[in-house]
């Protein structure tokens, strides 16, 4: 078995790369590319997401208290 003379160099992680990893792993909302370019319907994307979410979390917390506050202006 032969080995490379030069060990692999560590890959420098830029702040941008770090953010990309976090976005994928930490639930940061996924922003679709413009619909005209992607052709992805956001509801279809959401249904796919929720199928997985419901498998992982079948007991989703339900709101158990009414809306808070009374400052309604719209």
């Amino acid at each position, binding site marked *: 078995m032969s080995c490379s003379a030069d060990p692999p160099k560590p890959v420098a992680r830029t702040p941008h790369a770090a953010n990309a990893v976090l976005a994928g792993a930490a639930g940061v909302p996924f922003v*679709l590319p413009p619909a005209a370019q992607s052709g992805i319907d956001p509801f279809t994307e959401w249904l796919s997401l929720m199928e997985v979410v419901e498998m992982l979390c079948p007991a989703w917390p339900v709101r158990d208290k009414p809306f808070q506050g009374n400052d309604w202006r719209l």
Partner: protein
Amino acid sequence: MPNLAAQIREALSMFADRGTHPALIGGLAVVAHEVVRATKDVDFLLEAEAADRVHEALLGLGYQCLYRSEDAANYIRGTEGLDLLYAHRPLARRLLAQALDRDTPMGRMRVIGVEGLMGFKLQGWVNDPTRTRDLDDIRALMQRHRSTLNLAELREYFALFNQQELLNELLG
């Protein structure tokens, strides 16, 4: 298809049977505006005049009313929730009137415009500052639609809640 989709279909059918066509708001409207995140928030903006007949219909479908005022109502049915905001002020009535029809996998439904959605998200956050999800949604919608947002309309909503500085901060 998740039960949530069936729940929304059932609600849309009930609304149509009662002769009303509310607009989707809340987390699912955020999805409709191309910021996809996990949510089970089924929220609609409903003309105030339809509040009583929709209330009766929801009870008939097995929902329990947790809370109801002239501005909003919360319903639950087992693990399913459904919230209504009532449009009785001019701004909300305008937003409801301007909501556009969308074909979705759950059926045809009206969806509030992105500026109005951000206005309602702001209202939710002002009423309950612990709801940081609302601010996150505003930021994500701002990022997604920055180039096409009607800033004059957006400024109107932020001024309504004395949050002009927040808007300036979000706009950078």
